[in-house]
């Protein structure tokens, strides 16, 4: 039996062990960045950062801090591997993905190092599932060099308000234009679709606006296809921070509260659409 043989071998073989009482606390966060098949995991003593990228233009990071886990042991400075995200999420939800009151799936995630599979032990109601997911060569993740000192404009909103705006935006539009400015219209989302243009404005003194720090007027366009995956994170989040830097790069940070009331962050970086950038002087 694989279980007993694992127990005999003990935990010495693992370079990373992370245990969690409620698997939903991690599976929900991972779902927020699941838009490509593969994800790169980087574990350090602070926790685990999971990165998913698309077309070298979009990067999503989920941060799962070490204190989210009931047990978090790491024996090297950093541990990095790549796994198939779809497979991982199927494994994590092996006992069902809907929340059943009083029933939680416990998770113990172990990794022995380069070349070894990622081993998951899941337990619910006395039933144990062991998953061994093949790991792949980790790929270098993009460095968007998004530095807070270069941030030009920043707003923090309640997610509800942005969810509403996103659901009303015309998704037939190829791009979404974001205008941030210290003057009117302050914060504007625009689309240009088949049935016309839509603009959605947020006044800076709106109840939904928690922080408004815009220093100069900036208008940038982003591909809707790249922003669309971020709506998964938006749906789960309670607050969102929208920032742009001097190059027009967009950073969306989502604050997500899990079942146990702990806070996690998911971050999306997106390049501006080039055409627009060229028009700028």
């Amino acid at each position, binding site marked *: 039996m694989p279980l007993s043989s694992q127990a005999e071998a003990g935990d010495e073989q693992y370079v990373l062990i992370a245990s969690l009482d409620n698997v939903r606390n991690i599976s929900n966060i991972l779902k927020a960045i699941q838009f490509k098949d593969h994800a790169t995991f980087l574990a350090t003593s602070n926790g685990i950062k999971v990165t998913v990228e698309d077309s070298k233009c979009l990067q999503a990071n989920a941060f799962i801090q070490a204190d989210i886990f009931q047990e978090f042991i790491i024996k090297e400075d950093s541990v990095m591997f790549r796994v*198939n995200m779809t497979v991982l999420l199927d494994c994590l939800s092996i006992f069902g993905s809907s929340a059943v009151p009083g029933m939680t799936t416990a998770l113990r995630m172990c990794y022995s190092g380069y070349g070894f599979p990622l081993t998951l032990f899941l337990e619910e109601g006395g039933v144990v599932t062991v998953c*061994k997911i093949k790991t792949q060569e980790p790929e270098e993740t993009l460095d968007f060099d998004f530095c807070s000192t270069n941030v030009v404009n920043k707003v923090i909103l309640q997610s509800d308000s942005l969810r509403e705006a996103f659901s009303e935006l015309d998704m037939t539009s190829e791009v979404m234009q974001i205008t941030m400015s210290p003057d009117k219209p302050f914060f504007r989302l625009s689309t240009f679709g088949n049935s016309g243009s839509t603009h959605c404005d947020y006044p800076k003194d709106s109840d939904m606006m928690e922080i408004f720090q815009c220093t100069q007027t900036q208008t940038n366009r982003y591909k809707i296809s790249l922003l669309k995956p971020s709506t998964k994170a938006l749906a789960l989040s309670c607050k969102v921070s929208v920032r742009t830097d001097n190059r027009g790069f967009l950073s969306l940070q989502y604050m997500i509260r899990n079942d146990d009331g702990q806070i996690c962050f998911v971050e999306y970086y997106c390049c501006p659409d080039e055409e627009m950038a060229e028009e700028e002087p």
Partner: protein
Amino acid sequence: MCTLRLTKEKLFFMLTDKVANGGVSMWSELLQENFFDEFQIEGISLEYNEIYLELAPENLSRALKTAHNAKSVKIKLTKKHCPCITIAVELPSLSSISRVVTHDIPVELISRRLWNDFREPSVPDFDVSIYLPPLKTVKNVLDRMRNLCHVLVLEANMNGEMNLKIDTDLVSVSTHFRDLGNPPFREGTSRHFQGQDQDPESLTEVKVDIRKFQQFLAGQQVNPDKAICNIASKRMIHIILLHEDVSLQYFIPAIL
């Protein structure tokens, strides 16, 4: 299409997937007296007082759906344009005269010489007989495993342990159930049971198509009191769902 066999005491619903040669077959038995106040049957002769017919089960279930709050339901075998099962549903109404809704479901009668094709499926000798865990858990696990792989390996032993496993290039998953219990020898079809002298810890393994194995889970609708799984190594899985009024049997062939 499914076959309905009527006898004086029992009703049988049978499904045999002959076309695929060795497909899934199903056999369910209902005691007539648990369902009907009145029951009359006139078969071919006194000696063979039975009726075999073929019908589309969805027609039957659709017709019976209208009978949800009926005062009474009468089911008859009639001869209209073609042989039909006629379902007369008496529905309550505000006036003193109740409404009657009649459904005719075309059926095909099966002649006497073909009856032998519909005998209770022969049950092979089993290596292991075990109670299944709650079907909802099995369903959840299989739903995920099915996304990852089509072939399920089911292992069980006489020590109440059962494993569901899949293995692909990307991932291997195994779910372990313990303390399930093994039915006593008399129960179900354990007369065929031959695993009595083997080591209770040793696991018997069988491979099946996950989708075929999932089909029996539709049987959780009857909310069975007990679900028994019999395994004939490398041949088949035999599942019996037992309920007060109904018993359902599924025969799922193994993949070699």
